[in-house]
Structures are given as structure tokens and as C-alpha cells.
């Protein structure tokens, strides 16, 4: 099985984020600035985002790694690495 492309991963993250935060315009996010600083996201939202990504990507995200996933770029980087290990 081929690992999804970075583009596909990004699409998946944005789709998941937009389900958790349905009023956010996720297309305009700055990938290098934390989600928290751009859209209103509380701890429960963030946890739901992490759990949804785990489910969607079928990959384990370690709780202690959550801070690494606080930006779109960070999410992409982390998931690309995790999925590469998996494949």
C-alpha cells in the first residue's frame, strides 16, 4: 500500500478540522501558526481533532506528541512521518 501523498494528508487534516470547527475557514489558515492563534479551538476541540485524525489516518498519535501537531505544518510533518513508518 502506498502512503498517502502530502497533499492528500493536508486535505484530510483540513477536512477533519472543519468537522471539529465547522465555522472556521480552514482554507485560509497559515500553516506555520498554531491553530489556537488563528481559530477558536478549546482543549476538547483539540482532543477531538487528534482523535479524529487517528481514526481517519488509522495511525496512533501519542498524547505527548500533541504539541507537535499544533500547526497545520506540524500535523502534516508528524503524520507523514508516522505513516511512512507504518508503510
Amino acid at each position, binding site marked *: 500500500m502506498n502512503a498517502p501523498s502530502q497533499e492528500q494528508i493536508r486535505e484530510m487534516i483540513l477536512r477533519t478540522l472543519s468537522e471539529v*470547527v*465547522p*465555522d472556521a475557514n480552514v482554507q485560509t489558515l497559515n500553516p506555520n501558526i498554531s491553530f*489556537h492563534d488563528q481559530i*477558536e479551538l478549546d*482543549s*476538547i476541540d483539540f482532543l477531538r481533532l487528534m482523535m479524529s485524525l487517528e481514526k481517519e489516518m488509522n495511525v496512533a498519535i501519542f*498524547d*505527548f506528541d500533541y*504539541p507537535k501537531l499544533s500547526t497545520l505544518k506540524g500535523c502534516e510533518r508528524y503524520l507523514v512521518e508516522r505513516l511512512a513508518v507504518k508503510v
Partner: protein
Amino acid sequence: MSGTTTHQRLEPGEPSPNVAAAATAPADSFWAVARSELEGLPGGGLNIACEAVDRHVQAGRGATVALRWRGKNGERRDFSYADLAGLSNRFANMLRRLGVGKGDRVCTLAGRIPELYIAALGTLKAGAVFCPLFSAFGPEPVRVRLSKSRARVLVTTALLYQRKVQAQRNDLPDLAQVLLADGGGAEPGVHSFQALLDAESDQFTIPFTAPEDWALLHFTSGTTGTPKGAIHVHEAIVAHRFTGRRVFELQPGDIYWCTADPGWVTGVSYGIIAPLACGATLVVDEADFDARRWYAILEQERVNVWYTAPTAIRMLMRVGAEAAQGCDLSALRFAASVGEPLNPAGVLWGQEALGRPFHDTWWQTETGAILIANRLGQELRPGSMGRPLPGITAAIVRRRPDGGVDLLDAGEEGELAVRIGWPSLFRGYLDDAERYRACFADGWYLSGDLATRDAEGYYWFLGRNDDVIKSAGHLIGPFEVESALLQHPAVAEAGMIGKPDAFAGHIIKVFVALKPGYVASAALHKELLGFARTRLGPAVAPRELEFMADLPKTRSGKILRRLLRDRELGLPLGDLSVLDADATPTG
């Protein structure tokens, strides 16, 4: 001392029914002793900020760190008691210059930034009323609370102002001044907090504030109607300080961390006032929950006493106790929890992970301070609220149709009630004498919490007698949520329930019936959730939505939320003849 005849809306300075209650209450002499330990103001006055800050400076403890602030990007700032005294003096001088005086409301809408703490204490010094708003509220809850409180001044940040207030200024005629912690000056009536503070003297003499003068206004929710503004007076400091000492055993110099946000009552009573009144060092973390960061704070700051909430504890449990291994938590003396009942597993998990069990505590916005708790030196019963504190008389009661109450025996289920007469009992709901009166019967405050008492006097929470829910420890009423959805053109009816959630305790779920011509679809589903969230903000936003053809209602059209909840939980729906009955919700 019936609450039904004397409790009504009061203006600042008016005598309170609680004074009359206290004069005859058996606990009177007890609280008089607690009161005598305070500094007070000349002439019999009392001021929360004087007790929290200035008295320590006067006693030679001005160099002790009062507030240790840790910014989300790694910044760290210490404010000594002398610093905090000077800064709050500047803020009080500024309010005076702005024409804000006794009884005027000063609101904050901000995260955990130092300016919020300075504003809170400065407001109290000026004799004005501090009213915090949670920064995760959306524009609608913010407008309603600013409007109901008739706030004269708002302290916030540029981003929060732009997102939640600016477009609504025309609807807020009382809001004369906005102070931005990180900017200002771009439009009339919007100032830089820092620039105004810098222009003021750090010397200020607190004007006379009577124990019954208004000090704090905390909004809370009931089943019906708009949020209720619970009024607290300066006398509340007697209970704040007492509980800080008797529940947390706080001593001057202790390091204390309360994770609650000061947008709610816990973050003020126990996130600002009580620990400072005890002379402790208050740790404030600006960042959101992050397990690794939290353990680092407990370790690095050598936290002695930690007050947190079940949602956070459940999130820590998810990470696992082993995450705390390797952290030196030997300074931690006491860990406590508040916001909703903590299940026994959570209590015991504290022992495993931190070496200290979590002690559950019970109180409400209306009670102003902890009234029932598991305390050090007493047997801890996991899953219970604990026992009433000294000076507090609690009971399980049943309301009678004639407006009185019957006291129930140990083991019986009923409503948790507390004998009035303790200092931090709220003194009214702003502009709502009727709802205030409804909280009292036969000299008891009726909490709306259903509970039972065991043979040894420990209280056990069972549920609520109304339709409010606790989500992440925050009390949320259906009215605001349903009203926001009803503003959407497609929505004919909306009903809110709390759906059990592994972390938040409950999340908000709404059931929606559409108007003719609208069809349920995935797109509309997302649109409605987004619509509600834009207005309400993440703290109050529904996270799930389900379409229904019709919502169950009474004959007069009240939505039967209990039926929605039972249906969601898969419970038997029982006798549906209640559909024709008009139950009268409390609150």
C-alpha cells in the same frame, strides 16, 4: 428568617437579607471569628483586594511573589505582593479618572494574562464590581452579559475585541471604555491598558467599602431565560480566606496552582482571591491543557497545592500515570478537584500518578466558596463531595407544595440545601428578584443539585433537578444555545441536552426540527453547527446535532428535554402521558 420575604434585588450599599440571616444563624459566632482574622478598613469596612494584596504588603511581606505568570510561549513574569499592590492601585486610579465608581461594573474578556488579575484587584479597590467573561464565549454570550451587567469598562485584547465586541458596540450604550491589553487607540473609547496605567500613580487609598457592598458579578445559567448575574459582596472574602486555609491548608509562601479560568467563578474565588488572601504564591499558566507542560509546572514551580477539574484529570488519565514518572512532585501536599463530581477512579488515579488523591469539593457560583469538601485529616470517600465545612449546615430536603421544605434522613434522595448565613452566599441575581427568591425556602438555600447523605455525613451527588448541563465543568443552560439556533432561517425548533462524553463530562447536543421547505442534509447539518458556534463560541457551542421531524413538547409547547435525553441514552421513555403535562422547570 425566611428567604421568601427579604431576598430581593439590592442596590450597592443596601442592607442585605444575609446580614439579618447571619444575626440569628447558629453559625454566626463561628463566622464572626473568621471575620476577626481579617484586616478590615477603618470604620468597619471590608475590601476583598485589601485583604488579598495590601494587607500582606503592610505586614512586611511585599517582596513575596504573589503571582507567577507563565506565558504560552515560554515567558515568565513574577509579580510580588508589592508589585500587585502598585499595579492594582494604578488601575483603581485609572477607573476613578474614567469616572467609574462604586457599584459600576468592570468586565474582563481575556485569557489568563496578567492584566486580567490587575484589573480584577484594581476594580475591587475602586469599589466597583468585577465581572469576568469567559474568553471562549462567542459574540452572542458576550453581548448578552455586557448588556445585562451594564458594564462601563471592558478589559480585553485586540483580537477578542475585534472578534466579539467591536461590531456590537452600538448595542452596548453603557460600555464607555474599552482597554486593550495589547494595543488600543485606533478608535474612540478604545485605549491602551498599559498607556493608561503608566500615566497613573501607584498610590491609592481604598475608599470605604462596606461588607455588604457589591464586589463580584458572576454570570451563570438556569433552564429558562437569559443568564443570571449572581451578585457577591466584599463580605465573601471571609469565606474565601477561611476555605483557603481550612480546605487547602494554605499558608503564606505556599505555591498554589488553580487551573480554572478566571472567566468563571472558580478562577476568581480560588484562582485569584483565596490564595492571595492566604499570602500564597499563585501560579498562573496562560496555555491550554498540555499534559507534559502541566507536569513540568507542578515540578518546576514546586507546587504545594493544586486545584483542578475532572475534565483535566480525565485527559491526564488518558495520557497515563507513567507520564508523571520521573517528575519530582514531592512538593505537592494536596490535590483537589471541582466543577462536577469526580468519579472514584479519578480520585484514586491521583494517588497513583501524583502520590496524592484528588479531594473533591462542592460549591456553586451562588455559594461563592467551597461549602462541602473532602479535607485533609478526614477519611476521603472517593466519589463523594465530602462533608460540610465548619460553619456550614447542609441537608437533603424535599420541597413541599406550600413552598417550605421537609428535611430528609440519611440515605434518602433529595435536593441538597444549605442553611443560609455563610458570608459568601450570593446576595441576588441582577435585576431578577423572582429567580433569587426561588432559591430559598424556610431559611435554606436550595442548590438544585440532587444528592444523598450517608450515615457519616458525606454527601453524594446524583444529578440536577433542571435542564442545565456541565460541559468541561462549565454550567450551560439550554436557553442561550437554543436561541442561537432559532436565529437560523431553517430552524423551527431546537432542544439542547447534555450527551455523556469521556472527557468533557457532557457535550452539548441539539435536536433540531426544520421549517417547511428545508430538507435535512449533511451540508445543512454542518452549516447549523457552524452557525451556532460562530455566535456562541467553543465554550457553549453544540458539538452534535440531530434532525427530528418534531420535538417532543408539552401541550403548551415547552420542549421536553428530558425525553430527548432519555431517548439519546437509550433509556425507557416511560409514561408518555407526561407529554401533556406542563412540568415547571426550576432555575
